[in-house]
């Protein structure tokens, strides 16, 4: 047990940590939702991840994503892997620096009971969820978390085996900026769903 895990067992019992550490998390896209969910789940004890993202870090990502100014231009998945290893040096992260498409979907997320949908465009969110919904146990998705004015409350909805967090209506492509407070809040709610399901905690 490393120092991180020694700290974590002050809050979780051995059985809980063992359960969490046995589960692999798949993440589609390593932007505002994906990078924050990955960091929160690593801090919660999860140590097996598979992450797919095609991007490099842009200055416009720094307002909400888990990257720093001196990392602009670096590959997101490689940088996120480094970030997770900074939290838990024994975390195992399989990364793919590619664009996810339904045509290549079968190559990823084998043996992942949890798959996180963290894309930023509606068409990819829809395609990703539709593709994996009958290939995994649970999908956790973020939907509508970009707004400065006239904010709508975010909630959790369940459709089949898909848990969807957000206000379900605010579209970032319609002039609503994705800012850190709501994007991070949405990611935290998504991570909480994963933790609850992993530990068998009833979700209301």
């Amino acid at each position, binding site marked *: 047990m490393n120092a991180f895990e020694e700290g974590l067992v002050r809050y979780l019992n051995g059985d809980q940590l063992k359960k969490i550490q046995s589960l692999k998390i798949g993440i589609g*896209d390593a*932007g*505002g*939702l*994906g990078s924050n969910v990955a960091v929160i789940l690593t801090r919660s004890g999860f140590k097996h991840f598979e992450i797919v993202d095609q991007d490099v870090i842009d200055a416009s990502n720094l307002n909400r994503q888990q990257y720093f100014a001196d990392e602009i231009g670096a590959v997101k998945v490689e940088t996120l892997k480094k970030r997770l290893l900074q939290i838990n040096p024994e975390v195992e992260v399989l990364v793919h620096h590619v664009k996810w498409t339904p045509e290549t979907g079968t190559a990823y997320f084998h043996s992942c009971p949890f798959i996180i949908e*963290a*894309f*930023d*465009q*509606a*068409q990819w*969110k*829809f395609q990703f*969820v*539709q593709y994996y*919904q*009958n290939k995994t146990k649970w999908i956790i*998705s*973020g*939907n*509508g*978390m*970009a707004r400065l004015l006239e904010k709508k409350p975010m909630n959790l*909805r*369940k*459709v*089949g*085996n*898909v848990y*969807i967090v*957000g206000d*379900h*209506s*605010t*579209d*970032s*492509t*319609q002039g*609503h900026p*994705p800012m850190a407070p709501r*994007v991070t809040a949405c990611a935290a709610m998504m991570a909480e769903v994963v933790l609850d399901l992993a530990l068998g905690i009833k979700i209301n």
Partner: protein
Amino acid sequence: MKITINGQEKEFTSSVNLKKVIEQFCKDSQHVIAEVNGTIIKSQVWPEKNLSNGDTVELVNFVGGG
């Protein structure tokens, strides 16, 4: 015929399929995920999925942001 859509009971005077309901209740049906009585119904079969009295439908329309 009464169908519960996203938690609200709606009255329909004639038979209706899932595609018609989605067109009526979603601004844009392109990125909608639909569940009927707990089961996700893929978009390809919405027109053939006839709804019955007492059915529960959940619809989520994906929007951009992340």
